[in-house]
């Protein structure tokens, strides 16, 4: 299928990407700044023979996703921070029952109702399990309209591979910004693994299937958890990252999503000012690309982590470095987006 370059909003790119990625059904409840997703899908999904249903709440949305995922569908929901908080029980169930699905969080300022401005304050929730129990989501962080389009399929593939919920963690800027992106003219049905475990009616199957996260016997639940943990360890083989100007850098800036864009511009400014700065961008926030980071960081003088938060991902960077290289942090909150110049200033400090 030939793709054509067009100016497109991140949320629209994500929606088309979901269809391109074989999303069978979308269940969601409106919330800014991701409303373009349900709005576009409400007309595009039926056109493409898929299911779109607006749920009465996020709690209902995630549980509809649970049902559809159990039935073997590529099921998806999308929301923003407060709405995603309401999904914590449901996501924990989906992870416990080992069902693949896609949850999108176009983050906004918190806590509470906060604001609708862009933020990265939900990293802990997404990556450390905001819900109860020892589960993990696969978490992908796009940084462009092009990745907003291509990550849904990637997310579904990884979700199916590991029978695990996957999350796309974006923010208000990525959702609202328009950029050129290559989008195919029409979408061909993507292949996906056969789901012999699906609870879609036995018809002919010799045994019944059950989708379940209840394991009442402690030792069986322990074993179930060990199986999950082994799976999470194996995910490391799929961790993804990217770098810019990192090779010869003295200061390595670590940032994801929109912040990585700011940091990239800042690195260029810093180099104009004579400081060798480079960017390490985690693409999978879980599994976290620790090994690659250690590798890239080798020989750097200092690491600067930049986030639109009070400092969340920085903990994973510090856990990765374990004291080997000093790690600084610069964060803005509440929807304030630092300019490349401001980030550059922090790089200059770090370089001192």
């Amino acid at each position, binding site marked *: 299928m030939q793709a054509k370059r067009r100016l497109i909003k991140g949320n629209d790119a994500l929606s088309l990407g979901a269809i391109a990625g074989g999303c069978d059904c979308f269940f969601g409840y409106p919330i800014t700044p991701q409303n373009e997703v349900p709005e576009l899908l409400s007309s595009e999904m039926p056109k493409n023979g898929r299911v779109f249903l607006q749920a009465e709440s996020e709690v*209902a949305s995630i549980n509809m996703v649970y049902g559809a995922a159990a039935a073997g569908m590529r099921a998806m929901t999308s929301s923003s921070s407060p709405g995603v908080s309401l999904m914590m029980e449901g996501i924990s169930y989906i992870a416990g029952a080992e069902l693949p699905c896609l949850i999108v969080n176009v983050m906004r300022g918190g806590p509470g109702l906060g604001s609708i401005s862009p933020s990265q304050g939900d990293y802990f929730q997404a990556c450390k399990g905001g819900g109860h129990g020892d589960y993990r989501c696969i978490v992908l962080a796009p940084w462009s309209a092009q990745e907003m389009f291509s990550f849904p399929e990637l997310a579904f593939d990884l979700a199916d591979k590991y029978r695990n919920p996957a999350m796309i963690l974006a923010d208000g800027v990525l959702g609202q910004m328009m950029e050129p992106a290559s989008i195919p003219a029409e979408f061909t049905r993507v292949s996906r693994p056969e789901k012999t475990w699906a609870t879609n009616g036995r018809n002919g199957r010799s045994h019944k299937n059950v*989708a379940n996260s*209840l394991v009442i016997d402690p030792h069986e639940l322990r074993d179930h958890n060990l199986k999950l943990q082994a799976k999470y360890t194996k995910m490391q083989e799929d961790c993804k990252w990217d770098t810019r100007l990192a090779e010869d850098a003295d200061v390595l800036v670590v940032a994801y999503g929109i912040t990585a864009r700011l940091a990239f511009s800042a690195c260029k400014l810093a180099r104009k000012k004579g400081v060798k700065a480079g960017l390490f961008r985690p693409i999978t926030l879980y599994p976290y690309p620790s090994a690659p980071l250690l590798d890239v960081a080798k020989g750097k003088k200092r690491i600067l982590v930049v986030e639109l938060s009070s400092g969340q991902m920085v903990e994973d960077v510090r856990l990765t470095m374990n004291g080997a290289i000093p790690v600084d942090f610069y964060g803005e909150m509440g929807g304030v987006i630092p300019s490349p110049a401001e980030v550059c200033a922090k790089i200059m400090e770090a370089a001192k």
Partner: protein
Amino acid sequence: MSSLVEAPGTQLPDNDLQCVFKKPASMTSKPLHYCPGCSHGTYHRLIAELIDDANLLSTTVGVCPVGCAVFAYDYFEFDMIQAAHGRAPAVATGVKRCLPDRFVFTYQGDGDLAAIGTAETIHAAARGENITIFFVNNGIFGMTGGQMAPTSLIGQKTTTSRAGRDASWTGQPFKVCELLSTIEGCAYIARVALTSAKNVRTCKKYMRKAIQAQQQKSGFSLVEILSPCPVQWGMQPGDALDYIENTVTKVYPPGEFVNKLPESE
């Protein structure tokens, strides 16, 4: 004791005996975990009998709740999904929208359906969601140890209303069928008490209609059974059934509340 024991299914002494009653094929042989005299088991059996009758074993997807029936997936031969507390109707919606030709039902208790699951139940009905709900109203939170439910009767003693439920503080019993009757998306809504063999047959008749409603794509269907929780009620199983017959049905009148089935009498 061995005198008493008869391993299930052993060949009988002679062949002039014909079996007039046995466990339906859609039910597994696993012993139930319910307390003595709990109607969950009876309701399970009726579901299995109807699935057998309608020959739906291979196309059914059942959704079980959080509540004493949480283990229901162990007792049926068809595919089952265990849903989060109160969310079974949303889970069933997810399945049914993607697989409209499957028979999709939920099995829920009164805490599950009428407390935490209120919004999911009502909006499934409001959407005219083409699913069937088998609703067990025993007026209490059985699994968690007998706390008050929205459906508990006034004056009923529970572990969170030790002096008896006080209407002035907690309101009146929550009437699911009456509430749903105002919603246009409902195709079949009925209530019955499993207090006699006759009522068991009535229940089965109602359940059959609820299943038909879904098969005819007429919309949302629900059958509420007034069920005992002998243990949490602190009654003998037999007395608990009498209590339902004499007291509970006064607050929750049995009958058909909505019936939009074309060929319904």
